[in-house]
């Protein structure tokens, strides 16, 4: 069953001069078992949208359907704790939220909090460490002494240790180096393809959306402007340009080449394929 928003609005500070409508009558379905990118300008409602998925924010109006549950405006959600175990939410810059003395303790905190024994929690934490590529040598280190990229992995492992069915990540690669970004995105890809987890990623990085995501939701001024599959979205630059988004390098290059009289087929989806097509055209003429 897909995740669904039905006429969801969210208003911050309602009834005060700071009233702000962050989501306005949002009806939207998000596919289960896929990687969906949620994109849009700062302030378009992306973060507000995803924070409804584990009832961290409750709708001011409308309802959210997720994993056979309904989160409705005006009523306290039931079994909140188990929902939060099933829907893991990783905030922007989660490394600022690490607090335990050791990496292992920090990661085990979640499962322990959900009533798992100390031993079992440590086991889950070790599995999660392995998933994010942190070796056993990190177990006893202080999370506060790690590099930015390592801290980020500890924070994500803390969520993975609870083995959520849905993983929601708010800008998971912001501030990481290219290598760290790559590792992080391929981790999410693996979690999706191998463990069937539903993954939602709020991001500004179109290169990552193009390479790793299945679907795209574009938010604009508190409303979903567009929902489509990645292939359609990046067929050429036109949709991106319309939305004021810088398309991935490959798409920009394909368009530039076409404008200059080269033939580039739609199937070309990486630099090797592009080189192959171009080589043929240049050589054929030669």
């Amino acid at each position: 069953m897909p995740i669904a928003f039905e006429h969801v609005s969210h208003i911050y500070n309602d009834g005060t001069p700071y009233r702000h409508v962050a989501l306005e009558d949002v009806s939207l379905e998000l596919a289960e078992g896929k990687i969906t990118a949620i994109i849009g300008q700062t302030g378009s409602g992306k973060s507000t949208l995803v924070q409804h998925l584990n009832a961290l924010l409750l709708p001011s109006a409308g309802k959210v359907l997720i994993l056979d549950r309904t989160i409705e405006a005006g009523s306290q959600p039931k079994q909140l704790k188990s929902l939060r175990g099933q829907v893991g939410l990783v905030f922007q810059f989660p490394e600022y939220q690490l607090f335990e003395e050791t990496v292992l303790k920090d990661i085990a905190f979640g499962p322990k909090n959900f009533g798992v024994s100390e031993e079992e929690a440590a086991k889950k934490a070790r599995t999660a460490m392995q998933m994010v590529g942190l070796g056993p040598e990190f177990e006893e280190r202080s999370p506060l002494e790690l590099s930015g990229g390592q801290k980020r992995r500890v924070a994500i492992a803390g969520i993975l240790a609870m083995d959520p069915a849905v993983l929601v990540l708010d800008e998971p690669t912001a501030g990481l180096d290219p290598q760290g970004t790559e590792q992080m995105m391929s981790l999410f890809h693996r979690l999706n393809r191998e463990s069937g987890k539903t993954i939602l990623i709020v991001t500004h990085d179109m290169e990552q959306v193009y390479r790793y995501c299945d679907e795209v939701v574009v938010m604009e001024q508190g409303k979903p402007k567009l929902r489509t599959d990645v292939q359609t979205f990046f067929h050429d630059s036109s949709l991106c340009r319309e939305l004021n988004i810088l398309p991935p390098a490959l798409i920009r290059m394909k368009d530039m080449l076409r404008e200059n009289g080269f033939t580039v087929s739609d199937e070309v989806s990486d630099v090797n394929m592009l080189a192959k097509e171009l080589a043929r055209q240049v050589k054929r003429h030669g």
Partner: protein
Amino acid sequence: MALIEVKDLCFAYEGDNLAVDHVSFSVPEGQYVTIIGHNGSGKSTVAKLLAGLLEKKSGSIVIDGLELNQKNLHQLRSRIGIVFQNPDNQFIGSTVRDDIAFGLENHCVPQEQMDDIINAFSARVGMSEFLDKEPTHLSGGQKQRVAIAGVLAMAPKILIFDEATSMLDPQGKDEIKRVIMDLHRKSGLTILSITHDIDEVTSSDSVLVLADGKVALTGTPAEVFSQEKMLKKIRLDIPFSLKLADELNKRGVSVNRELTMEGLVKELCRLHSNM
């Protein structure tokens, strides 16, 4: 003589584990240098050593002909401004005006001069219209521009950007990159920018590549990006146009390794029509 001369610089956060390991480089006055390297390569540590925020273990840093040491620290610090990564950690004032004034007050700039300075530098970063705004009403890019104005108001000779764009959205990134380019072209400031942004690297005068606390490569962007094997080894990215040029060369199409897509398309068009 170079404005910044770093020789055999070493630093360790604890024990003998060198975070900066015998780093040497020099920066001529007026250059725009980008510093790249993976997370944990020592980039930020080098920046903090240069700004006198950390004390070196050994080696030397000479700035503007003066050795950076306890004695000269105060004098040299006024010549170096640093802008950090997180826009929210750098805003001290309750308004844009107050924030820029903060540094001036600390330097005992007379009140009657302050307004002129604030007006001049807020204009320099395009924030004149926002002088009475509070930080909560500013975007990340705007806050970073205020941070830059505050640093410029101190009249430094050297500006260091420590991943100043990495926490910003694409629009904010563009704003800051434009401001940096503009400062470089028009004010003759010497700029050191730590970045992961390939486009920014491409537009700088020279590049310093750090890996595991050591200098892995230095040179112009073209020189550095030509060291493909080395870059791959330390797992750094190269511009898309270079990746494509390399793939074409592998397939027997000889094209220049152009740093921009526009350049490469021109190359290809030339080949296309010459045949």
